[in-house]
């Protein structure tokens, strides 16, 4: 990570305005309320279908729109580049003697830096959306797609307005809003041109759908005699009736409203206040969108309806806000759009901010797989430029099991001087940051594969394979031991193929799909060789690899002969909690009678949540006598994210802090998560805080309660 970028992230972490505001909002709850009674999954499917179909024929839709709108009397201009839009508008202003312009919110106009260009030509363009006006007065960029000035406090806004109106204003929001009403009303009445964006453009009818809460777009399109709309071509949809699903979702996802205060559907020029017809110019902006649509992977990003919900739920955005993204569009989706609309080089550091928790993907109304696309950017970057030498060497070593394991065993001996009670609490010199807020686990002296040899297996017809994964193998062998003992209690024989090694998720996450596919290939030959009914893993991250990503990377790397084997394996793979829940249901395991019922809170690790494994571990633990006390934001990322905690330690620790607070507030005896990665993070964090709450894997907790 380059130095300036790291500094901008650190500076952003110091500013709590935006994260405090998002915290107070509680977006997930208010969004859920707005969608009450609506089949949200069906709605998302419908939107994804409409937008993905449109993305496959942008050119045809633009042509159809041009014809429909022209037939109704509008002037349509198709602009390939931002410069073409700037020239068009400047020329129009000069021809019509326009010197004052009012604008309602348009991200497309931000994308092409319209205001500064017009100012350069002596044309004053005033933003009228309150947030945009604030940002304009502050000479900044929007920090959020929907609420552009979210990073500024009322005091800061008051200072900006006081300077603008040349008198001292209070910090009362209602007064500030009144000042904006009066100041901007004058501008509406005197402007000679109004510029808007559009939320939807309908090819069939040539209509523009413009959504606002303030009512500024109504004034911008009514008072000045000329209306110019700048529309990114990804806003095009084919049919008028298809407005419905998009307009149903947009306000709910954006601001948790059933509908915004105002929606205008404008088709062709409408009358002016002096009885003349309005001059309506619609500029369809391409700016590499067509190129994006031709890319089979990135076409999906054109399904975005710009609601900003991905920003509201992003644990990283909540911490750093929009400005570290360095450009117009912010957050994960912004990183993708910036790469295409502006330059790939600009996003080299940005894609590394995504921790891959997947929350954005789950709420996106257009079903854009934002983390998947960011990973694809990383993959292309790695394929083109190669990984940094140290990272590549490390990943290659992980892939070579004998060397990797020998190194870990050596490290287990070398760490002795700094280990206390199984934790490394302080690291020397430049490594000290890594253990500042979280003790690190030590490497186990006896790895799991050695422990396994000491557990005598019952001869049974039911055999399962246990896939341990690196963390259980070398950090938490006791979790593996608990899993095996529980399965044995149910009369099941556990097999542990010695050839198994790292699942390849670190390689996959670094974009090194070639190395990840090698990891998949080597594991497959060992895991598919026996008569076992299932492959059990107690690590949600490994489960993601076995169930999903091996198929994905092998397909991507054209190893077709292995894909069907990976699919076979995926169908047999189960998370430990899923399998144990089944054993408990079948009464294969007997629970101790004890008078005490310990309390427990449960953290949904991202990789388990992505597989939909949330209810079964809770239910299994409750069956074993634990009393569940849910923690706030139980499904928010703990900040571990594999190598993320090393690459982005400051962000990782802030996410952890939040998680720890929520855990401690439950006052539960235990916190559990079915992911050793999360346990490393949470257990280490709780140790630093001397908390009484202990972090345990479900297997450890369940074993304690079995007869």
């Amino acid at each position: 990570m380059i130095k300036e970028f790291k500094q901008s992230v650190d500076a952003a972490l110091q500013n709590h305005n935006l994260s405090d505001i998002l915290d107070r909002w509680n977006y997930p709850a208010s969004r859920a309320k707005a969608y009450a009674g609506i089949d949200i999954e069906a709605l998302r499917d419908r939107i994804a279908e409409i937008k993905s179909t449109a993305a496959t024929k942008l050119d045809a839709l633009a042509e159809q729109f041009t014809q429909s709108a022209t037939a109704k009397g509008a002037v349509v201009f198709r602009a390939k580049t931002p410069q073409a839009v700037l020239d068009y508008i400047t020329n129009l202003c000069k021809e019509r003697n326009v010197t004052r312009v009012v604008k309602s919110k348009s991200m497309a106009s931000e994308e092409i830096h319209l205001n500064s260009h017009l100012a350069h030509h002596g044309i004053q363009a005033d933003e009228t959306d309150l947030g945009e006006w604030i940002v304009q007065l502050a000479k900044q960029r929007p920090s959020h797609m929907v609420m552009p000035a979210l990073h500024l406090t009322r005091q800061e806004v008051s200072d900006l307005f006081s300077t603008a109106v040349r008198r001292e204003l209070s910090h009362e929001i209602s007064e500030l809003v009144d000042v904006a009403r009066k100041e901007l009303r004058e501008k509406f009445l005197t402007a000679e041109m109004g510029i808007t964006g559009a939320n939807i453009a309908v090819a069939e009818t040539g209509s523009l759908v413009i959504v606002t809460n303030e009512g500024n777009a109504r004034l911008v399109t009514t008072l000045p005699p000329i209306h110019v709309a700048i529309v990114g071509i990804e806003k095009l949809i084919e049919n008028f009736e298809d407005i419905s699903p998009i307009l149903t979702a947009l306000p709910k996802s954006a601001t948790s409203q059933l509908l915004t205060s105002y929606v205008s559907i404008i088709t062709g020029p409408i009358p002016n206040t002096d009885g003349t017809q309005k001059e309506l110019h619609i500029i369809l902006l391409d700016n590499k969108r067509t190129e994006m649509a031709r890319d089979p992977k990135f076409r999906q990003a054109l399904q975005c309806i710009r609601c900003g919900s991905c920003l509201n739920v992003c644990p990283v955005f909540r911490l750093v806000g929009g400005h570290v993204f360095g450009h117009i569009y912010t957050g994960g989706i912004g990183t993708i759009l910036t790469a295409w609309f502006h330059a790939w080089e600009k996003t080299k550091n940005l894609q590394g901010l995504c921790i891959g928790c997947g929350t954005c993907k789950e709420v996106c109304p257009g079903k854009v797989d934002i983390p998947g696309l960011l990973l694809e950017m990383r993959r292309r970057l790695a394929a083109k430029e190669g990984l940094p030498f140290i990272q590549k060497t490390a990943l290659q070593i992980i892939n070579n099991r004998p060397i990797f394991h020998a190194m870990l065993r050596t490290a287990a001996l070398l760490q002795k001087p700094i280990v206390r009670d199984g934790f490394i609490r302080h690291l020397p010199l430049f490594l000290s940051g890594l253990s500042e807020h979280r003790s690190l686990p030590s490497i186990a002296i006896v790895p799991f594969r050695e422990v396994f040899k000491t557990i005598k297996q019952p001869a049974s017809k039911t055999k399962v394979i246990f896939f341990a994964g690196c963390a259980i193998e070398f950090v938490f062998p006791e979790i593996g031991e608990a899993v095996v003992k529980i399965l044995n209690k149910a009369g099941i024989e556990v097999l542990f193929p010695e050839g198994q090694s790292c699942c390849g998720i670190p390689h996959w996450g670094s974009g090194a799909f070639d190395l990840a596919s090698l990891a998949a290939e080597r594991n497959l030959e060992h895991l598919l060789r026996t008569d076992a009914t299932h492959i059990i893993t107690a690590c949600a991250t490994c489960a993601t690899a076995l169930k999903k990503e091996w198929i994905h990377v092998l397909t991507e790397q054209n190893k077709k002969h292995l894909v069907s084997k990976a699919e076979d394996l995926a169908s047999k793979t189960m998370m430990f909690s899923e399998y144990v829940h089944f054993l408990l249901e079948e009464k294969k395991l007997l629970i101790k009678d004890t008078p005490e019922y310990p309390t427990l809170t449960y953290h949904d690790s991202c990789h388990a949540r992505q597989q939909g494994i949330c209810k079964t571990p809770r239910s299994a633990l409750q069956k074993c006598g634990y009393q569940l006390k849910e923690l706030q934001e139980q499904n928010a990322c703990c900040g571990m994210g594999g190598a993320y905690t090393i690459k982005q330690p400051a962000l990782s620790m802030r996410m952890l802090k939040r998680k720890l607070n929520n855990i401690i507030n439950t006052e539960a005896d235990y916190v559990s998560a079915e992911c050793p990665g999360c346990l490393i993070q949470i257990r280490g964090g709780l140790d630093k805080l001397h908390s009484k709450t202990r972090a345990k894997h479900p297997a450890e907790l369940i074993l304690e309660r079995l007869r």
Partner: protein
Amino acid sequence: MFDLFKLKAEAAGSEVHRFKKDADALQFIRGFLKQEEIQDTPGLYAVWADNALMPKAGTVSFENPGVKFLVTRDSANNAKLGITKMDWGMAETGTVIRNSTSVETRLASSLPEIHIACLETGQILPDLPTILKKIHPHEPSCFSFITGPSRTADIERVLAIGVHGPKRLVILCIDTLESAGQ
């Protein structure tokens, strides 16, 4: 349908009143004009668009020179109150909808601080797909969907009312609308 409409409209910050006939609604407006001190002073006018609630243009007299039936950018900008007819209601969101191609309607519903929107109760339809079928545009037009007052949360995400448009939206639902209006 009306009950759902009222519930959702009020949740969005609108005021909803229901009347049997035009005359009852007009009576309400008379009281409203008095209460809001509408008079022939810039800033305190009422602009009356669409001949809403009138059997014929300008046939209802208010003996109040502050009530302007000529809606211009000047009279609307100096009005405290704007009165318009609406074409439909949308129950699922508590929205009122109007073909507002005529500029008078747009001015009267967007510039004043208070907007009184008159709607026939029977024109409340269930949802967006139903409305979109009604308004499929075949010629140049502007359709306005209005849900509650003008609002913003752009400063610290704190809700503030009336940043550019009306601070109050008062919806009058009339069961038997005798006047055609415009």
